[in-house]
Each structure stands twice: as C-alpha cells, then as structure tokens.
C-alpha cells in the first residue's frame, strides 16, 4: 500500500497569549490516504481550525511531525510553504474571499499568477475549471453580480485551477442557504469521486454526513474518528 497522503505524529501547536500558553493542538496523530473524503468537526476552540491551518501549510507546528504529499511541513521556510500551497492545496473559505471588481475568470486564475504561467494558459485553465463548476456562462461577471452559491463556485474553481491533490474547505457552506448548500456539496462529492482528497471543516452534522470519515476534535485532541 502507498504511503498515506497526510501523516501527522504527535502534532502540537501552542500559542502564547498574554502571560499564558494555549495548547490549541495537543499531540494529534493521524493519517489520511489519497482519495479520502473527510469531515473535521468540533466546537469553536476545539482545535479544528488550528489543525486545518497546519494541513494547509499556512502554519507550522510547535512540535511533532507533519508530512503532506511526502513533504515535511515543519522543516519548510515561508517561501517554500507558499510554493507548496500553490501546487498541492486548494483552499475554499466560508467568506469566499474573491477579489472585488475582478472577473470570475481572473479570480479563478489567481493562483496561476504565482505558478509563473503565461496569461493565455492561465485564462484557458481558469475557463476549464469554471466550466467544471457550471459557471461557463458567467466568466466575465464580477463577484457583486453573482449570487452566494455562484461566488462559492468561483472560489472552488480557483481552488482547483492548479490541479491540487488536496481540497481544503473551511466551513464552505457557512454563508450559504440550504438550497445552494446542497449544490456546493454536490460539487465536492463529484470532485471526490474523480479522485481528489476532500477535507471539510464544519460544525453541521448534515454537511459532515457527505463525507465518508468524520473526525471530531475537543480541547486540542481527537475524540472520535469514525468511518
């Protein structure tokens, strides 16, 4: 069997706040294989966001080891982490984080600017991904001209544009109504079926039910890991 896509051992992240220390993540060990569909759950302050930031290479652990796609996150410097995020991780955020007054196409193409691709190829790949999420007709629209569900689909196209191995979604349906939630989750289901590893952070059980594995955090530790 191939090495797991994500392998963390004794992962700890401590924040210094005022005088004291907060152990946001306290010795987490876990493996996730390529192609899994995982929901990470927990109350706020449970450590799930900290775990998410580490998986996404936005942050480095205080101690312990974290290997993602064969690379040791804890040993990388800021620029190496940036390049790693660019080619390996696709991010989807609760608040979409699209650039205002910028077309859907340019928003979706944003990560490719930092991959050093030429303009024509950036546009071509962004268009292909927008087609894939069903926004082929609205490439020139600005975020203000799109509904919430459509904006989140642009964000998903942006996350996919550089062919990442992992799609990390932080409360991706938190700002959506129930109808569009179903649509967006449908896209995640389909992408996972096509082979991308999808990791959702959510506190809603019916969102988590789309995943085939649910990991529950409490006080910086994993308290439940069911498939």
């Amino acid at each position: 069997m191939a090495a797991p896509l994500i392998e963390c051992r004794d992962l700890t992240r401590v924040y210094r706040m005022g005088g004291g220390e907060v152990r946001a993540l306290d010795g987490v060990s876990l493996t996730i294989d390529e192609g899994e569909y995982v929901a990470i759950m927990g109350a706020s302050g449970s450590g799930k966001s900290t775990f998410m930031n580490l998986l996404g290479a936005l942050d480095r652990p205080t101690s312990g080891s974290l290997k993602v796609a064969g690379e040791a996150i804890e040993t990388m410097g800021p620029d190496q982490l940036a390049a790693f995020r660019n080619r390996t991780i696709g991010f989807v955020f609760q608040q979409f984080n699209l650039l205002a007054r910028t077309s859907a196409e340019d928003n979706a193409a944003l990560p490719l600017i930092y991959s050093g691709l030429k303009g024509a190829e950036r546009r071509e790949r962004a268009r292909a991904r927008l087609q894939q999420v069903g926004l082929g007709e609205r490439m020139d629209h600005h975020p203000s001209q799109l509904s919430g569900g459509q904006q989140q689909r642009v964000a998903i196209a942006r996350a996919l544009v550089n062919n990442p191995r992992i799609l990390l979604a932080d409360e991706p349906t938190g700002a959506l109504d129930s109808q569009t939630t179903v649509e967006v989750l449908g896209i995640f289901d389909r992408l996972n079926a096509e082979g991308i590893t999808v990791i959702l952070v959510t506190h809603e059980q019916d969102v988590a039910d789309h995943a085939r594995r649910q990991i529950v955090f409490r006080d910086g530790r994993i308290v439940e890991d069911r498939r």
Partner: protein
Amino acid sequence: MNLMSAISVALLALRVNLLRSVLAMLGIIIGVSAVIAMVSVTEGAKRAMEERIASFGANLLVIRPGSSAFGGRRGGAGTATFLTDADVEAIRSEIPGIVAVSGEMSGSQPMVVAGENWTTNVQGVHSDYFEARDWFVESGRAFTPAEVRSGARVIMIGQTVATELFGAAGPLGQTVRVGAVPMEVIGIMAPKGQSSWGSDQDDTVFAPITTARSRLFGYQFGVRDPVFTIYAEVAPGTNVSHAVADIEELLRVRRNIQPGAEDDFSVNNLAEFIRARNETETQLGVLLAAAAVISLLVGGIGIMNIMLVSVTERTREIGLRLAVGARRADVRNQFLIESVVLCVTGGIAGMAIGVAGAYGIGNLGDFPVSIHPAIAGIAIGAAVFVGLFFGFYPAHRASRLDPIEALRFE
C-alpha cells in the same frame, strides 16, 4: 508574478479609489511640477548668461583709466591719464596668455550717403579687436594691421547701420561721409543682437583707430596715441585672475604708481560681472529646488499614508494571495509597484503642469525658459524614487502579514 500583470493589478486598485488616488498624487504632482519649473527657469537663465558672455567675448578683460566700474573712485574725472597704443603693445608683448589685444576710442558721428543720414557710434579699434570680441565680418573684409598703421579711410558697418543707410542696396564699396570724412565701406559685421544692457550692438561702425583718432576725434588728449579702453582676450584655459594681476602690475610700473598708492585704472572681467548679475536668477532656482524637495517629501508622505491605508483595507486580499501561493516578495513587489504607478502617474501629470508653468513664469516674469528633453527623465526618475522610497515601508508591512490572521481580518 510578472511585471505586466502586477502593473495592471496596480492600475485597477488605483482606479477603484479614483478620488483618493488623485488626492494622494497631489503632492507628487506639485513636487514634480515645481522641479520642472525650477529646472526650466534656471536652465534658461544659465543659457541666457552663457549667451551674453559669449556675445561679449569669452575671457575678455576690459581695461579703463581713471575709474572703477564698481567701486567709488578717487581723484575726480579727468585726472587719470589715458591709456595709449604703447600700453596696448606692452600688454601684447609682455603678458603671457593674451591672444588678442586692442585699443578702442569711440564717439557719436553723423553718417551721410546719397540722401540718407544716420548718426551712430563710431569705434576706432585695432585689427585685433574683432578676435577679442569674437565678432567678425559677415560679408566683405576686415581692415588689416597695415591699414591701421597707415590710417586708411575704410569702415566696417553693423547690420543696423547697413539697413538704415542703404536699405536693400549693397553697401560694400560705397563711400560714406563719416563726420566730414569720406570713407569706403569694406565690410558688414555679423549681427550681434542686444547687449546685456539692452542696447543694439549692431548700431555701430568700426574704423581703424588711427583714422578715428586723427580725423574724427581731432581734439587734444594730452598724450600720444591715446585710447579710451583696452580690450584683451585671455587664451582659453589661462588663469584669468593671474592675467588680471599681471596686467595691473605692468600698468602700475608703466604709469609710475608708487607702492601703496591706489591704481588709477581698472581691469575688469566682464564675464564675472555678468555672472554676478545672474546670481539672483540662480538663487531663485535654489529656492524653487528647496520648494520642490519639500513638496516631494510631503507628497511622498501622502503616498506612504495612502499605501498604509490600502494595505490595511486589503488585508484579506493579502491573506488570500499568500494562501494561494504568493511569496512574501510577490506581495511586497505588488504594493511597491502600486506605489510607483501612483507616483509615476502623478509625475506625468506634474510634468505637464510643470512645463506649462515654466512657460507661464517665463511669460509673466520675462525670464528666459529652456525646456530640456531630459526633463521627462528627471520627472519620471523623481517619481519612481519617491514611489520606491515611501512605498517600501507599507509594502514591507504587507509582506510580513501572517496569512491566517490576514484571512480572518474583518
């Protein structure tokens, strides 16, 4: 991230907040236009000064008896003895580095030819005069040293005299009555234009000094072969003040001035005098330069302020860019480019206003203005410098943001 896409992102960011961008640019616009107005006006003043010096003859020394052109003089008019042809010859043979030296006598004389008349200043000079003054005949010929020695009745006329007396007809070879003496026109001088005092230098006639002395200014001077003024040209590269000192020493000996007594003659370097006159214009330039530096500084602080606001407003955007793979240098460069684009846009506007302003100042104050093509380079260069210098801190701050906190920023 390549430069072109960075510039288009920067332009977009500036267009989004158009009014704010224009206000932020105002300082740069004022600064750059002040720089350009300054450079144009001082450059024009410098060029005018050089033209005046050149028109007088570069490195020209003017030697006069009995009075100083600047200081108060003692002894009263007419007590000092005239300089003479012998002084001219002594300067020619004994002072090193003198390339041309000539005496000069002048006076107003009526000129009459075939029903036209014109009264003008007739200057009797040696044949070296024209080299000393850097002023030559345009057509015909100059008189020779032999003609000076023999007192030939020949004249060269200035452009104004040629027009007044002869109109369109050719004056060469014509005979003109100067005072009571018929003289032949052998040359027409090249146009010289206005002197630095505003008089028409072309309204003049040159005759051999011997002819002028014996036939035109036929009164007693108390010395043999007197001259009113001696013009001496120093060779280029010669130390002018050494030449002045040498001539002073020579003339003190020749005029029997006791040690400790004051000179009864003066040796002036007119180029120096003209330079001194122009110093006021140069000082105006220094004032403008100070104003320009201060307004660029204030403009730069405005840019820095607006860039800091922009970085704060776009914290989430920065977080997103970092999350999707921007390196710190990419973020820093993006904001630096925005700052430079802001400044360069202001610089171009400032350049247009500065050029217009320079002409405005030139027209109002009757200053000469010289718009140099390099001014575009100066304006853009100053703008880029201000953009980089004052944009660096905000850009650096943007690049140091933590992606997680930036993404969470409300």
